[in-house]
């Protein structure tokens, strides 16, 4: 809360004194825009149009975020539409509500009651009701083009049995007892659209901004939505406008920032981030867990040597995680423990960190008779750092006596031919920030093809128990499931990388929006 600190200093007249003591260091800390932004009254500075660059999808972009999976689609959607709620580890329910006041769950964990805040309206003045919430959650399931994340609620909640009790109350029955339903609904992806919205540029929206101009593949221009009511900050949003730019290349985004064409550049490659860190004109921020993306490799259990758990353990021990963090991410990443979803409440952080132990890896391979085994690791440039980490991992494998080679596919090809992907002996992948147990059910358990042969009904059962119960029982089952995954699983997850954003010092308040992997601007200010 840097602006607040500065404000306090100013009001108490301490700034001059502090400068005299701390010298120029403090001034730099305040940022170059300190003078003009110094708020004289209460609240943060209002006004200004913030320009930001994100990965987009080209001329095919639409306003339908249910089908568009790029960062720009998500950021635009969160600027246009109000969120149900966001994950917030510091909040009592683990979530911070947006349009909702509370979510209540019954004793049997079989029905969730969503209560809306009163007086919310869309940009056209029409009221925001429980019907709109239900439609926003349930309609993606009917469209086969929808992204899996938007179809998922339908596999958790029984929308057919949903009841709109009044304009402000929605009751959602679950398909099976569910303890973490709040976390499912308030992940930050679920936004409220007007019922039967057609996603055209003129549609009424509920978020902090309204659409002014939309140029697919180039960007969009948004203005403040005066009808928006922020749950915590009355005056928000503070910005007059928001210009979101679509730039597919990380270097181009950085170049637009350094050239003064945008104020904020999202998802920078590690090298670019490192270069910008050395430049005092810019502030580089990286997200912390849980808002991190896992770069992982999966061993195909159909591939003979990997059926032996000793080989799998050897492959995990061979990864020099610290070196990957240091040389690919210049230290700005987190070492992984072969489990996905670190930082989320359901992640088993009590499991000890797997060491880097090439000697033991070599010994295990020898015991398993897999010394000198040949394997090809297949990867692709799907997210910054993915190829680099794979390149280093192959060198690690060679160092423990595996005849490993790397195959890099051109951009977009790794997951394009999914049956072929599911046959790869050793395949690279990446995860987006998702709680550990829902992630397991979505993309790993129940013989999902993405699991490359992992078939353990006992673990599936444990995860279901963890999600279907609460308290001690839930925690025990969750830990047991992840312990088994850690010991016997076929995933090597050596590194979790942050989402790195660089901006000019005048930009503030972006992190207040939570859901940090995609910057939100409802409380952002620009000076």
């Amino acid at each position, binding site marked *: 809360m840097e602006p607040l600190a500065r404000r306090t200093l100013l009001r108490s007249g301490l700034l001059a004194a502090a400068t005299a003591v701390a010298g120029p260091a403090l001034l730099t800390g305040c940022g170059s825009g300190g003078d003009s932004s110094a708020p004289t009254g209460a609240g943060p500075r209002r006004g200004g149009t913030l320009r930001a660059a994100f990965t987009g999808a080209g001329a095919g972009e639409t306003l339908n975020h249910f089908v568009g999976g790029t960062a720009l689609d998500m950021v635009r959607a969160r600027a246009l539409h109000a969120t149900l709620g966001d994950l917030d580890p510091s909040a009592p329910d683990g979530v911070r509500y947006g349009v909702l006041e509370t979510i209540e769950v019954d004793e049997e964990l079989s029905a969730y009651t969503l209560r809306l805040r009163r007086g919310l309206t869309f940009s056209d003045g029409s009221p925001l009701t429980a019907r709109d919430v239900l439609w926003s959650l349930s309609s993606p399931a009917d469209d086969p083009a929808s992204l899996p994340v938007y179809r998922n609620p339908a596999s958790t909640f029984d929308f057919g049995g949903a009841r709109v009790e009044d304009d402000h109350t929605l009751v959602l029955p679950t398909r099976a007892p569910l303890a973490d339903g709040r976390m499912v609904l308030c992940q930050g992806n679920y936004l409220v659209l007007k019922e039967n919205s057609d996603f055209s540029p003129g549609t009424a929206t509920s978020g902090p901004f309204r659409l002014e101009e939309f140029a697919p593949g180039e960007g969009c221009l948004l203005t403040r939505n005066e009808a928006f009511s922020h749950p915590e900050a009355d005056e928000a949003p503070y910005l007059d406008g928001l210009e979101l730019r679509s730039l597919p290349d990380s270097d181009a985004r950085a170049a637009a920032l350094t050239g003064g064409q945008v104020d904020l550049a999202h998802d920078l490659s590690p090298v670019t981030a490192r270069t910008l860190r050395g430049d005092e004109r810019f502030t580089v921020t990286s997200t912390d867990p849980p808002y991190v993306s896992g770069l992982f490799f999966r061993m195909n259990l159909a591939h003979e040597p990997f059926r032996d758990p000793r080989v799998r353990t050897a492959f995990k021990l061979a990864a020099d995680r610290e070196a990957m963090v240091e040389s690919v991410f210049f230290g700005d990443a987190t070492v992984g423990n072969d489990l996905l979803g670190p930082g989320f409440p359901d992640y088993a952080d009590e499991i000890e960190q797997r060491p880097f132990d090439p000697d033991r890896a070599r010994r295990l391979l020898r015991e398993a008779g897999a010394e000198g085994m040949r394997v090809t690791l297949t990867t692709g440039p799907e997210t910054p750092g993915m190829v680099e980490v794979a390149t280093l991992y192959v060198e690690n494998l060679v160092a423990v006596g595996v005849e490993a080679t790397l195959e890099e596919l051109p951009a977009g090809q790794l997951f394009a031919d*999914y049956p072929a992907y599911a046959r790869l002996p050793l395949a690279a992948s990446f995860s987006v920030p998702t709680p550990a147990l829902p992630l397991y059910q979505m993309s790993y358990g129940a013989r999902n093809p993405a699991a490359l042969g992992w078939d353990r009904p006992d673990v599936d059962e444990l995860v279901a128990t963890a999600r279907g119960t609460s308290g001690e029982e839930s925690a025990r089952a969750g830990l047991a499931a992840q312990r088994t995954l850690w010991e016997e699983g076929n995933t090597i997850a050596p590194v979790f990388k942050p989402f790195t954003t660089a901006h000019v010092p005048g930009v503030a308040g972006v992190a207040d929006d939570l859901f940090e992997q995609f910057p939100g601007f409802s409380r952002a200010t620009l000076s």
Partner: protein
Amino acid sequence: MSWSLFLLRRLAALVPTLAALSVLVFGATELLPGDAVGAVAGPDATEAERAAVRERLGLDDDPVTRYLRWAGGAVRGDLGTAYTGGRAVHELIASRLPHSLLLAGLALAVTVPLSIALGLWAGSRAGRRADRAVSTGVLLVAGLPEFVTATALWWLLAGELGLLPRVSLVPLGGSPLDTPEILVLPALTLAATGVAVGTRLVRSASAEAVASPWIEAARLRGVGGARLAVRHVLPGALAPATQAFGLITGALVGGAIVVETVYGYPGIGLELQQAVAHRDIPLVQGIALVLCAATLATVLLADLAARALDPRRGSLR
């Protein structure tokens, strides 16, 4: 051959050519591994969902049926629906093509006069020092791959000197012409290669014209210098040079893919790159077909211009 007959014959020849090109485009994209299901249904789709997508997109039909369906649509101006976002391919192309045409037009506007001036100057002095200086300089530039020229110009003009924008961002809701500075670097890069190629061709055509008997005759009459070059050499050299510019325009298409990628200019080349990366097959097919058609059109235009400019009004081939 009369003009109308000539035009008719050339236009008639376009139809089978374009048809054959469409087979090539379709065939080449058929070679892409896997199918669209991964791109459309997403990696986490179930078997049933994948089957539904295959059904919806008609992927279970044999390639000939699918080709006919696609080509039939193309004739009616319908190039199908892009996988990303589900918009009509022809709309996407229509939103991007003008940007690229503008860039190509600018590059040509620099290339043509400059190549003619340099080529004429060097060609009239064939074999002399001036000619060799121009020819060698031009060969130097033409020898550089486009991405090297682009990266070097970017580094110098946008990076070190900071004279020009680093990324060619088109103003939202506006046209690139509203901010002409974003066009300078991409157009300059394209023009550098264009001028290099164009000058060589004009130079050799001029050198040839200079050696011809009618120039000799003009010289004997005492005509010389710029007058000789413009009045006598240029007309003879212009027709072959025009066809050369047709060739250059074709090269601009390829150049655009590189240049737009380097500068982030939202044209058809960048779109193609992204479509390929997203495995958006209908979009790739549509863009490839349109690019081929554009190349054909420029070749035809160049031929027409050459015919109009040819002082002998002779056969073109």
